[in-house]
């Protein structure tokens, strides 16, 4: 009896919490399909009588983000242009670094690993001023190329950590056997290691995608005008003061900005969770 009561309590708490976590998503969506009149007369949770996607259209193509009023679409494409090379390059470098650090150790390689590892924890504020100047010297300030470069440099630490920890788990005997067969560094990597790496590649791709897509700090510091990513666009849009605050447009914009990472999470959540816990538990 006490047991049943206990289980009912547990389920109640779990469901109420789930409800609480979902609430903001519900509110965002419901607000985005309401008209302004209904937002003012109804409340956060009230269901719209008139469902309209006008706010979505406005958020995408004509809402004001500061002085310009062209919506989020160009910001969205900027993010896409930034995230694809950023993710691919940092993942490829991480894989190769992890391979060396786990399977081809040399004198000092552990120290190099420790040095790279500190990058996971470093507050990036320390880099901002020198980086801004250096990007200027390299001629890639305020450009998507510059942002990609920063994301690759700052993402190296976690991608290397992911691959290194994964490759440590692959038995050394496998490498030794391949070497006896005359396989060299690259052959072992491409023929043996890489085919075994699908899970960790997925984890790293998704991790980097989420991080780079969601980044705001580098976006706001290192980009301007036509290279700003979606997070900066959203922040500008939500903080642009207009005579009438259009909350429906704000919420539609927020959902647009969140959609890619939410979709990735829904379809590949398993890998996302593994990335979160892998980075943490194995430190």
């Amino acid at each position, binding site marked *: 009896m006490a047991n049943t009561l206990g*289980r009912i309590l*547990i389920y109640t708490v*779990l469901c109420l*919490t*789930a409800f*609480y976590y979902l609430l*903001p998503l519900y*509110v965002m969506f419901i607000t985005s399909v309401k008209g302004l009149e209904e937002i*003012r007369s109804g*409340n*956060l*949770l009230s269901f719209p009588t008139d469902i309209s996607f006008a706010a979505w259209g406005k958020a995408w193509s004509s809402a004001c983000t500061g002085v310009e009023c062209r919506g989020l679409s160009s910001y969205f494409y900027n993010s896409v242009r930034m995230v694809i090379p950023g993710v691919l390059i940092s993942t490829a470098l991480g894989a190769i*670094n992890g391979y*060396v650090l786990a399977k081809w*150790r*040399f*004198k000092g*390689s552990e120290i*190099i690993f*420790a*040095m*790279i590892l500190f990058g996971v*924890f*470093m*507050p*990036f*504020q*320390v*880099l901002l*001023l*020198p980086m801004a*100047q*250096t990007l200027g010297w390299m001629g890639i300030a305020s450009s998507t190329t510059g942002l990609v470069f920063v994301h*690759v440099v700052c993402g*190296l630490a976690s991608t*290397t950590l992911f691959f290194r920890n994964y490759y440590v788990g692959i038995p050394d005997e496998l490498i030794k056997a391949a070497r006896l067969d005359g396989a*060299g*560094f690259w052959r072992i990597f491409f023929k043996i290691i890489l085919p075994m790496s699908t899970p960790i590649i997925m984890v790293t791709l998704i991790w980097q995608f989420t991080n780079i897509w*969601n*980044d*705001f700090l580098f976006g*706001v510091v290192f980009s301007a005008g036509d290279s700003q990513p979606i*997070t900066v666009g*959203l*922040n500008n849009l939500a*903080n642009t003061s207009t005579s009438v605050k259009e*909350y429906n447009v*704000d*919420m539609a*914009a*927020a959902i647009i*900005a*969140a959609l890619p*990472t*939410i979709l990735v999470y829904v379809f590949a959540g398993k890998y996302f969770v593994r990335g*979160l*816990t892998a980075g*943490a*538990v194995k*430190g």
Partner: protein
Amino acid sequence: MSISAQEAHYGFTERWLPRLVLAPSFLLTLIFLYGFIIWNCYLSFTTSRLMPNLTWAGLAQYQILFENERWWVAVKNLFIFASLFIGSGMAIGIGLAIFLDQKIRGEGILRTIYLYPMALSFVVTGTAWKWMLNPGLGLEKLMHDWGFIHFTFDWLVNSEMSIYTVVIAGVWQSSGFVMALFLAGLRGVDDSIIKAAQIDGASLPRIYWKIILPALRPVFFSTLMILSHIAIKSFDLVMALTGGGPGFSSVVPATFMYAMAFTRGQMGVGAASSMMMLATVAALVVPYLYSELRGKKNG
């Protein structure tokens, strides 16, 4: 087999190839992380304001920093935010993990729901909560509609309370993450320990409190590390939710640094404040990394 003995078997190329392959990343790290730390440190000792310059100023920028009221508000806010964010995040996350560990039907779905905020950008979270906590049309209106006519909720525009709205949104976003870490830890605890304790007549809460949670000490520490690190770095959430306002009541060191370095033309002060952030993180992380790497060697 020692590393050098192993290396002796390698050919010339194979001995140098790994080093060569690692070199670009090593150089990037050396220059763009460690070199920049030194550079930034040097900047904090110069008279740099709108433009960087190399004129030595000693500790002048630090003195300006420490006499700046805004900086101390930021430090105090970080302290409030970090302790509440970590404390409630941990409590909620551990609670959810323990509940989910009771062979719950629909666990997969629940887990997915608890963790999805982690996939969102803090800017999205900030924008959403800014609307929901909005005095007037947000939570306040909802409570009025439900009959609580005298309910007021003005934290977002109340300089005494604004930092707590950051806590609310931050905990909403991150507690699912704590849940995931602890659930993974709980799943690693040997079932037979629990069975044995149950046979001895220990109650379930007692088993968790006395046996299982103490066994999860490493998870506890890494979670603590990650949460405090998120707290110190938190920038986007504050920018999107309160913008540091009203006034400068909800600034944190990260937004302070950004404002000084990039919008207020106080580069030296910005550099000095980021050095303070680095020192704080290093004080937390270096001992942790050291013990982790050492522990691995011995284990």
